[in-house]
């Protein structure tokens, strides 16, 4: 394992412990921004991603270089299998406009939030720090709401998942900061939140059987699942943006039982047959493919 990577990972983890997190709710006075709020919708990926369960063999073997190498080899093997299995799904999904769906979802959702009043909604692919920094430099608005979507198949290919990551950053440099990219540090964000929408394949099998099911008939099921998943985000985004601090605390209170849905764990907010809404720092919604 690359030493600098491990060092960087360690530094990042250390930094995340010592730095304060961004607020996960928008307080009443912060809802309307003097100077306006621009929206940047981002989808960095070109096609549906595969995902793997990262190897934990390094932990099982007590760590060290050998454990790291074994873990990397296991990750590589899993990634190779997942990339091979997902290829028919990608081929069958050709022409599916996930970028356009992300943009339409955002517009429809924000249209339901009266106080949001975006000055502009722009689509982009560059979700890097440099890319977002350039957006902040260029905007005439006082704040930019970055809404980044990612979509993938779960490691077992039993579900399609869409995640919307919300990060609001101010154009003005934070006090005592000279680097423009500091505007995007977690501790300086005006708001950070995420929404996860999972659509589960009925009667899933192994990874290849699931891939065949998603890709059959021109990826009929995969297209439907992505549409349903984005549709759920459209419903949950306005609700997320209008959450108060008390509501976020109440959803994480111990009187709410813990549960697992779609491979995610969190506190159960509601269940309706096979449909579950969890709170895991953000909403996680799991439902079977209709």
């Amino acid at each position, binding site marked *: 394992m*690359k030493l600098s990577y491990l060092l960087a990972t360690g*530094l990042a983890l250390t*930094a995340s412990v010592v*730095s304060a997190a961004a607020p996960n709710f928008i307080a009443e006075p912060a809802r309307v921004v003097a100077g306006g709020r621009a929206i940047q919708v981002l989808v960095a990926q070109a*096609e549906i991603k595969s995902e*793997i369960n990262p190897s934990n063999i390094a932990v099982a073997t007590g760590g060290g270089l050998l454990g790291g*190498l074994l873990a990397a080899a296991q990750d590589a093997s899993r990634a*190779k299998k997942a990339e091979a299995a997902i290829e028919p799904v990608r081929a069958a999904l050709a022409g599916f406009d996930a970028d356009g769906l992300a943009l339409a979802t955002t517009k429809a959702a924000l249209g339901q939030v009266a106080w949001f009043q975006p000055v502009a909604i722009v689509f982009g692919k560059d979700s890097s720090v440099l890319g977002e920094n350039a957006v902040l430099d260029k905007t005439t608005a006082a704040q930019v709401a970055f809404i980044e979507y990612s979509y993938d198949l779960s490691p077992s290919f039993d579900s399609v998942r869409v995640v919307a990551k919300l990060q609001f950053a101010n154009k003005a440099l934070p006090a005592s900061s000279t680097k423009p990219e500091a505007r995007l540090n977690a501790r300086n964000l005006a708001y950070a939140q995420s929404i996860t929408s999972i659509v589960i394949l009925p009667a899933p099998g192994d990874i290849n059987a699931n891939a065949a099911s998603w890709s059959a008939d021109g990826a009929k099921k995969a297209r439907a699942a992505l549409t349903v998943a984005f549709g759920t985000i459209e419903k949950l985004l306005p609700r997320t943006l209008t959450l108060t601090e008390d509501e976020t605390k109440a959803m994480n209170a111990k009187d709410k039982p813990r549960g697992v849905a779609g491979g995610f764990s969190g506190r159960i907010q509601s269940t309706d047959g096979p449909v579950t809404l969890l709170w895991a720092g953000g909403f996680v919604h799991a439902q079977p493919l209709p």
Partner: protein
Amino acid sequence: MAAALVPPAFGAPSPAQLTATFKDRAYANQAASAAAPTCAVSIVGIKDLRSSPELVGVIARRPILAPTDFTEWMHAVLHGLTMRGVAIVYDDKAIPQKGMPVVAIGLQTAWVASAATVYSANVVVHVAVDGVGARHIDKVYRGRVSRTAYWSGGSDTMQSAIDGAFADALDTIAIDLKEICAA
């Protein structure tokens, strides 16, 4: 979803700039003459059909930039057909060489992503061929490869991943072109 490679918590990760080159691992030690072309095609068009031509991906919040000269890049990649037994002739005026299949190429997608410590690259290439006689190809070819970031997570690894994906696609394209030539 699993966390991808984590960048340092300070500063903005500098971009990884890919170059308009193509390293063909499978043929790295083989002279061009070793695989004498059994087929020759005339390439009359190379189109860039990508939706975000400047970017091949974002990994750990680092932008991976595509080569700036698309034509030079594709010429480097398509040279890989020669190593696979298909000689190529470029004809910018779209005047096919007599007796040669006429090929139009379109790069639809070239992108990289990460999962744990693994980079995966994918390319999607549309190929249209008018063969001699009634043989035609109108087909989308996919190429993919995964590379583990054992010792380097830098531009070299990204470049190697994209090159590997193109090599994977070229393997199949060459087989089909040789079939057209043989017909």
